[in-house]
């Protein structure tokens, strides 16, 4: 990790003349592979399975983009990044796209010269503690030792939360979720804090999930989304509209099961434009007509991806909550395809 920060900084400094401004789309096409930055392993979001195939909610975005751009959702090289290395990896051109539980914030969008292509999960920061500690609210954590992943927004929220509530705590900085899990289970910290979705995913991987509780307080807003480099707007558009296509597909009832059927033509012109049977939206972002169809077919629409990776039927068991469609009282709202 250390090495890649250094190498990353060096690369930023010396070897990528123009990479940032150059057309990422052309690079990806020429390479025939999408370099997608993901986390180092968080089951449900991005983790390799027993056969080494990456799967998860974030991975599905990488696959959808690869399907839209390259026509093959398996043409992705997954680059594990830590909280510390992820933005350097993106800025240096090591990855084309970062989908790693990354929160959209003002400074990251502006000062770090990144662009968030949207939000694929509306989240907030929570705390997890052992049940036998007898804690029922984060406000009772005065004096506790807290494990926290460094290089994250959660690190700053944590400091603010304890200060605002006039409590003290002892931070233990960790590098990856796996390390945090190990420290927490060994009792090196009383509480583990990160995005609530990450906590649920982490807890689901424990041998005894029932002995750990996630406290009710959500202390921050963490809109998580895919990130690209600032300055390459064409590439940013592709990622943004691929994500929108997945969300819109759910809204209009386009699923991986009926997509072949629907792409023969429907009564709904919006669906027709989305699937490329009417007009040629793809050409406007440098792709072909069927880009969105392939993206949706890769892993299903947003709802299918959610249900398959982190939904209530999975061990992670997250409810849609804020991440329901706007028609269902959630925040998901894809702009019109026209």
């Amino acid at each position, binding site marked *: *990790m*250390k090495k890649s*920060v*250094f190498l*990353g*900084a060096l690369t*930023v*400094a*010396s*070897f*990528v*003349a*123009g*990479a*940032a*401004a150059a057309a990422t789309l052309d690079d990806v096409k020429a390479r025939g592979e999408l370099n997608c930055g993901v986390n180092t392993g968080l089951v449900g979001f991005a983790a390799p399975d027993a056969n080494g195939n990456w799967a998860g909610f974030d991975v599905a975005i990488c696959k959808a983009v690869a399907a839209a751009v390259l026509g093959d959702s398996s043409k992705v090289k997954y680059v594990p990044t830590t*909280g*510390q290395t992820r*933005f*350097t990896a993106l*800025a240096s051109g090591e990855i084309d796209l970062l989908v790693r539980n990354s929160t959209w914030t003002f*400074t*990251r969008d502006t*000062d*770090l*010269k990144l662009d968030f292509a949207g939000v694929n999960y509306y989240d907030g920061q929570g705390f997890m503690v052992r049940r036998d*500690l007898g804690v029922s609210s984060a406000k009772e*954590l*005065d*004096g*506790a*030792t807290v494990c926290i992943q*460094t*290089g994250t927004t959660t*690190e*700053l929220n*944590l*400091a*603010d939360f*304890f*200060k605002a509530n006039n409590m003290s*705590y*002892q*931070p*233990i*900085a*960790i*590098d990856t979720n796996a390390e945090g899990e190990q*420290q927490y289970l*060994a*009792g*090196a*910290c*009383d509480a583990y804090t990160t995005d609530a979705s990450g906590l649920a995913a982490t807890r689901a991987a424990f041998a005894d999930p029932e002995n750990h509780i996630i406290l009710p307080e959500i202390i921050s807003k963490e809109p998580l989304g895919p990130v690209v480099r*600032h*300055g390459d707007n064409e590439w940013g558009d592709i990622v943004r509209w691929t994500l929108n296509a997945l969300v819109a597909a759910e809204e209009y009832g386009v699923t991986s099961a009926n997509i072949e059927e629907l792409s023969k033509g429907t009564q709904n012109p919006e669906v027709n434009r989305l699937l490329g049977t009417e007009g040629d939206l793809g050409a406007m972002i440098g792709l072909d007509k069927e880009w969105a169809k392939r993206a949706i077919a890769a892993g299903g629409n947003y709802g299918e991806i959610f249900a398959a990776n982190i939904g209530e039927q999975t061990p992670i068991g997250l409810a849609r909550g804020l991440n329901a469609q706007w028609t269902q009282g959630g925040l998901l709202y894809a702009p019109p395809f026209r």
Partner: protein
Amino acid sequence: MTDVDMPPKQTFRLSQLIYDTRYRSLTIQVVVFMLFMAGAAWLVDNTIQNLKVLGKDFNFGFLWNRAGYDIGQTLIPYTNDSTHFRAMLVGLLNTLLVSFLGCVAATVIGIFVGVLRLSSNWLVARLMTLYVEVFRNVPLLLWILVIYAIFTEVMPVPNAFRVNPATGEAAASMLFFDTVALTNRYTAIPGVLFSNPLPGILGLAGPLWSALVALAGGLFLNSRLKARATRIQEATGTRPSTWWATLLLLTLPWMAVLWAQGFHLDVPAFNRFNFQGGIKVTNALVVLWLALSLYTGAFVAEIVRAGIMAISKGQTEAAAALGLRPGRIMSLVILPQALRVIIPPLISQFLNLTKNSSLAIAVGYMDLRGTLGGITLNQTGRELEAILLMMGLYLAISLGISGVMNVYNNAVKLKER
């Protein structure tokens, strides 16, 4: 007619720059220098270009912004409202602390093991060889992780010290009359408190300077006592026994001064999640310190051994012939000479240890790399500035260490008269 002895007229041809040995080395140096400068210029230019492409500037202003994060171990006051600059200082001091402790311990271990490795006792010598080989040949990071794992997995969690109201007992108990608690996060030891301390002077706390003054007074009286004993011995031939008076003079005064200021121990006590009160020495520090000292100690041991072996055997034999005991031969004859061989490579080991301390990130010890090169770098996105600054600071620390050690080296090296 020309004189045969007259040297040919000095003409200069360009090819002489290469073929003439008088010029060749200069030519090569000039060429290499130009290549080097061109390379450096290319790097700098490329950096400027790329920063422009990325839309970033080169600016250290971020150091004065609010840091916003908390640090576990701080030697100077620091809160998340402090600046990134202060966070950097906290990290720097943590680096210096662990490096200093590490250098001292590595030297002690190294001398001890290096000497024992040459012991004529077969078992002792072999054990020391085992230590050296095991620590020298496994990467430091692994040692850090192994020792950390032992600390976190083997020691009880602080919660184990909680007294169960039902049974009136706790799962773990404190050591040394309930004053010290070993946990998997830190070792809680008693702190010292004073109920009515004297005011501080020049930044030294009241109890500290007053105790120092009392100690100095005791030392002074003691030297008078010794002088008096010597006078009596010279006059009468028998030296009066002074050891009990010395003992009293060296202990009583400062103890009395501290006692008068209301000295008492602040014993850590378990409270909900952690121990409160006393001093908490974090395991991150202890683990890093142990791993760095044991690892570097193995190298120092080899240097010490080499230094000792460089002294000819005749010296030992001569000293033995004079009737010196083996321990004294080592400390009075061999080691002082061996130091001359030992110091220069020892400096390198100190430098290595200091730089290796940047592996602190593995145990979450917030050193320079953890604060400036870790969280600050990340939260501000100032990779280039942070890394350059960090390199500069490590360079400064290293130059400082070699400077001090070189002074020492000059003091012990062979004086040529």
